[in-house]
């Protein structure tokens, strides 16, 4: 007999990533982490990035740094991960390391205004007014 059958796909990978993202945005960090942990072990950079963001939300800086670095091992060109790692460094005032990440982002996407803004913050922190002027002219 042909008809509609109930298809239950509790392992829908993409839907779980969305759900974890929703919980993360709502700052329900433990729930977001639980959803991500139910994914298969071979995680892509997007999942590792989310793990990093959750750790960052929980103020677990070394864990966050670990996940962002793992994500970059999987995909060194993932701009979002590199931005997040830069922001993490910036948050903990590791200015030089943050600068390296934003410079790499700008090398791949020269028009990335978020990265430019963060570089400007770094130049301000370093009192590097010359570069700040160059950046503001090109923004």
């Amino acid at each position, binding site marked *: 007999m042909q008809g509609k059958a109930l298809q239950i796909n509790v392992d*829908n990978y993409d*839907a779980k990533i969305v*759900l974890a*993202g*929703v919980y993360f945005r709502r700052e329900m960090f433990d729930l977001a982490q639980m959803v991500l942990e139910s994914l298969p072990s071979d995680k892509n950079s997007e999942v590792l990035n*989310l793990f990093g963001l959750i750790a960052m939300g929980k103020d677990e800086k070394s864990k966050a740094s670990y996940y962002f670095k793992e994500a970059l091992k999987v995909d060194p060109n993932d701009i*979002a991960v590199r931005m997040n790692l830069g922001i993490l460094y910036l948050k903990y005032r590791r200015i030089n390391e943050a600068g390296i990440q934003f410079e790499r982002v700008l090398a791949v996407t020269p028009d990335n205004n978020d990265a430019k*803004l963060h570089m400007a913050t770094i130049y301000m922190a370093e009192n590097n007014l010359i570069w700040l002027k160059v950046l503001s002219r090109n923004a």
Partner: protein
Amino acid sequence: MLSRRSKAKQIFSNYDKYSLLNSHSTVGRIDSAIANLNKLAKSDNQIFIHTNLAQLYMLKSNLDLAETHARKSFTNKCR
């Protein structure tokens, strides 16, 4: 168009991938993709449609609809 202040606020408060992708140039295309998928979902209630809708609503930061469609992606009826 966003004011400088709200743009700065947006940049500083949303660091994750979804907000980075949610640039002005992609918003129009996301809206039209959502409209098309919603039409499709009425006649063909397949899981992948809800998964795609969940991802698109996430890009638009509509958390409620993203959650609704993500949940439908787990248990929806399919031909």
